[in-house]
């Protein structure tokens, strides 16, 4: 307990609150530093190295000052440091406006603010900066560990505020109060999270750097572009089939379709777009829900061949003359789509002559040996199908090696691959095959996308990673339309059936996660990814559509904004009511001795003998005895007993209960 007069000068009444500490106490400083540290840690992967170094040294400096109980550095020095940081950020990013320089500035400001703290207002400003930075990390990563870091950061920030308001309390008490506040805040969070009217962002145009550099397929393909992708264990998309999934050899997920070739690089042309497919779906049908990671491209990576797509809030699904499913806009957020595909569909039967002519074009003067070979193979062939057979037979017999590390190729990339190095990855196979077919006069094109995928045994979802990226070819045959040919399968049939790891030759280094021998690691990853998937679907994927579904399941259909706001207010008020009940609950937990004495006094007050506030039990007893002589003995005994129990040496419970009983039995006559 402490009670000290603070000020009593004439101006004291003006400044409310904020007892000015000369600087931070050790306790306050440590909590703040911990909050800042936990807040900044998840940013370490996304900020330039010098900002991380600067933040770490500023925090270290602050900790040292705190430890040495020194005053914060001079204002001027801090001002210079701030200016230097601003200039450095400008140098690094070239501008101040935008997400990345903004986050960098916030991180530096937080560290500088901690050094500057002189008043309680500075502490609050630092805590606000912590909250902003906890939020900013979600631009990059919203995984469960980051959420956990934000939660602990919030808790630490709350402890820091508590240490500011009540510097005398013990650590343990501060931590408990903060945890209590957090626990009481959680129901509000849950309620608001579920009921707050969700709108699909963005509210206005996103800044250019809203989406960070994403890995994934690009809209050009040259030797090496897909094998670069293979090293990444990142998930490209997840698929949940409503029935059984198609067999591995039918799992071709269609991305860009390349039709123009300059001898080295394949490029995509702009296909025709329509709201319905250019073909009639037929054969087996697979219904699935695909959850795409943002790749900043328009393709939907649907299973060949998509027939119908659900509008998923990002605009209707478009279909192209290259049998692709496209989005209206490049994909910036993780999104889900309900799609159906018919793998046995025939496509391109009615393709225009211009399309087929474009699928025959080859640049002049490049890859001469391949063109000669194609002409030989095509000589005397009765139909395109025969040419196809011959080309496939040639490739099968030429014993090309499938490898993750193909040698670099020069100008005539196809010639070098087929005749010199004879080692290549899927893009080499697809490219070489397509060039041969075109040179032989058969329309052909390259398709990039993903092939295969792995079923996660924990939740049964098919996970397709960047390492499943693949390129294959299509040839156009009269009466059969575009026919998929996967030349990689000729050299490495396991690639299609069992995935990349099985297809590579012995001794070739694999990315860690693809190693077959580390079974426990893979199983751990399966579990983690199943959890992450549930998190993505339930928490991160909670959007306007899901909100509607949830409300419909609760029995509220067609809920509009005012209704949602009313529901929110109702739920909020009930939660508040529960908290109020908790806050008022103390009354009943009073001391039993005090309670029975109160009962006694109340009863006598009703009889016209109230106890004066200053009267002790003994005096009161004497006065009562004088006023009510008939019961004098009993009154004296009761008041005496109470006095002894209250003020005497430790009273035991039995005696208190006895007094309680006597008071209950006592009746005025």
């Amino acid at each position, binding site marked *: *307990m402490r009670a000290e007069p603070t000020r*009593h000068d004439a101006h*004291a009444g003006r400044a409310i609150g904020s007892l000015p500490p000369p600087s931070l106490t050790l306790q306050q400083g440590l909590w703040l530093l911990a909050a800042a540290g936990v807040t900044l840690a998840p940013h370490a992967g996304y900020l330039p190295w010098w900002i991380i170094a600067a933040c770490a040294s500023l925090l270290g400096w602050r900790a040292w000052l705190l430890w040495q109980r020194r005053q914060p550095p001079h204002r001027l020095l801090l001002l210079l440091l701030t200016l230097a940081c601003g200039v450095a950020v400008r140098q690094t990013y070239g501008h101040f406006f935008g997400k990345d320089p903004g986050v960098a500035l916030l991180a530096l400001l937080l560290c500088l603010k901690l050094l500057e703290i002189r008043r309680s207002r500075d502490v609050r400003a630092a805590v606000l900066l912590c909250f902003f930075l906890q*939020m900013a990390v979600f631009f990059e990563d919203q995984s469960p560990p980051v959420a956990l870091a934000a939660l602990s950061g919030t808790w630490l920030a709350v402890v820091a505020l508590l240490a500011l*308001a009540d510097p005398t309390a013990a650590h343990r008490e501060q931590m408990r109060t903060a945890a209590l506040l957090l626990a009481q805040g959680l129901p*509000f969070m849950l309620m608001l999270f579920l009921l*707050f009217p969700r709108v699909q962002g963005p509210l206005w145009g*996103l800044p250019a750097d809203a989406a960070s550099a994403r890995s994934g397929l690009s809209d050009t393909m040259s030797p090496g572009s897909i094998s670069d992708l293979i090293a990444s264990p990142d998930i490209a998309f997840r698929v949940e089939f409503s029935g059984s999934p198609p067999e591995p050899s039918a799992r071709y997920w269609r991305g860009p379709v390349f039709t123009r070739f300059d001898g080295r690089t394949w490029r995509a042309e702009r296909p025709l777009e329509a709201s319905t497919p250019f073909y009639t779906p037929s054969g087996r049908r697979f219904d699935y829900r695909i959850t795409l990671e943002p790749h900043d491209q328009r393709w939907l990576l649907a299973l060949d061949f998509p027939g119908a797509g659900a509008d998923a809030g990002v605009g209707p699904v478009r279909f192209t003359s290259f049998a692709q499913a496209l989005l209206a806009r490049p994909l910036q957020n993780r999104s889900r789509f309900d799609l159906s595909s018919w793998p046995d569909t025939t496509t391109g039967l009615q393709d225009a002559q211009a399309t087929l002519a474009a699928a025959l074009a080859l640049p002049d003067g490049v890859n001469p040996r391949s063109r000669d070979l194609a002409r030989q193979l095509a000589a005397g062939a009765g139909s395109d199908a025969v040419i196809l057979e011959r080309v496939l037979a040639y490739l099968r017999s030429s014993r090309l090696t499938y490898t993750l590390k193909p040698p670099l190729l020069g100008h005539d990339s196809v010639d070098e691959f087929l005749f010199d190095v004879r080692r290549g990855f899927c893009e080499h196979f697809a490219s070489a095959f397509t060039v041969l077919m075109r040179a032989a006069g058969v329309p052909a094109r390259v398709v990039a996308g993903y092939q295969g995928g792995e079923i996660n045994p924990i939740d049964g979802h098919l996970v397709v990673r960047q390492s499943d990226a693949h390129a294959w070819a299509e040839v156009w045959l009269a009466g059969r339309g575009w026919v998929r040919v996967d030349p990689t399968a000729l050299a490495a049939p396991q690639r299609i059936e069992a995935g990349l790891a099985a297809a590579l030759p012995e001794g070739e280094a694999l990315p860690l996660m693809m190693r077959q021998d580390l079974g426990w690691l893979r199983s751990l990853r399966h579990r983690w990814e199943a959890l992450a998937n549930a998190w993505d679907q339930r928490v991160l994927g909670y*959007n306007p559509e899901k909100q509607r579904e949830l409300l419909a399941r609760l029995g509220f259909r067609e809920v509009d904004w005012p209704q949602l706001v009313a529901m929110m207010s109702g739920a909020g008020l009930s939660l508040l009511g529960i908290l109020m009940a908790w806050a008022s609950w103390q009354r009943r937990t009073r001391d039993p001795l005090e309670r029975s004495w109160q009962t006694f006094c109340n009863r006598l007050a009703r009889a016209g003998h109230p106890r004066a506030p200053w009267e002790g039990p003994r005096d009161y007893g004497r006065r009562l005895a004088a006023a009510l002589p008939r019961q004098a003995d009993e009154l004296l005994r009761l008041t005496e007993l109470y006095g002894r129990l209250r003020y005497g040496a430790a009273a035991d419970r039995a005696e208190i209960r006895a007094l309680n009983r006597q008071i209950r039995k006592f009746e005025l006559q």
Partner: protein
Amino acid sequence: MPSATLPLASTLRRTVRPLLDRWLFRLARPEPSPILLHQRRIYVLPTSAGLGLAAALLAMLIASINYSLSLGYGLTFLIAGIGVASIIHAFRNLFCLSVSAGRCEPAFCGESARFVFQVANLRSSRRPALRLRARGGETAFDLAAADVTSVELACLATRRGWLRAGRTTLETTWPLGLIRAWSVFIPDLACIVYPQPEPTPPPLPLGAAEGGNGRRLANTGDEDFHGLRPYRDSDSPRHVAWKALARGAPLLTKQYAGQRGEDVVLDWHTLPATLGDEERLSRLAAWLLAAERAGHRYGLELPSARIDAGHGEPHLHRCLRALALYRTTDTPLAGSTQDAR
């Protein structure tokens, strides 16, 4: 009086506050102790820090919507929920506190009047970071679990007469400084303020009738040690029992017997005509203290009252009180809420 030179906010506050006091807080007259802070007496409003946080949360919400950050929504709502919970905690920190008016020692004008309140915590948990404010004075204190503590509130006494504690606020911004919970009441507590003693008064008008040997008498009065009594603010440092203090005793004042000193009558009417009323009171106060210190028997003659010669502390206080209340009409329990400022 609001004047044109006052800033608008101050003017507004002066106009609005009495209305609020009457209609919202229902303040009218001093309340008998104990004052129990029940639910309807506790008010909560955000502090400037709370408003700042609300603005920050709004910005975070807009960012979450614009960038479709699910966890952004979550974090924003969690912090908002913590803010709401802190309202309840702030309320709970004051809820069911019981405030009783304690005593108040007399003070001289220009010094601090020290109001003492007894604040009782009936709950078995701690109540941190409470503040009691009245008349520009402010005291911060904590309350231990199930405890009663005396809180002393020092306010500057600027006018002689009764100084009432008046509009008193018990407030807290615990736990997070975002919300201020407060309760206003007028305790039944007043302090009597004596006139400020003249700093350098002329010597006591000793033996004005008999011809002055007062100096000698005063000296003898000073020399005969009589006993010790607790130190008071008005005592001269020369009379403090420093030796006793060094031995660990509290601050004591040596008293000297001057009973053989002559009677002195401090008469309002014999003061120079050039002095105004307050100056006369000031001089009389200084003389009363000097006479008491010197050990004379002294009496007081005012236009409105006459106090016969006497000696000792109760007598001194009776005289000073007569000075304090000279031509004032107020009583300690007048129930006025007028602000002295």
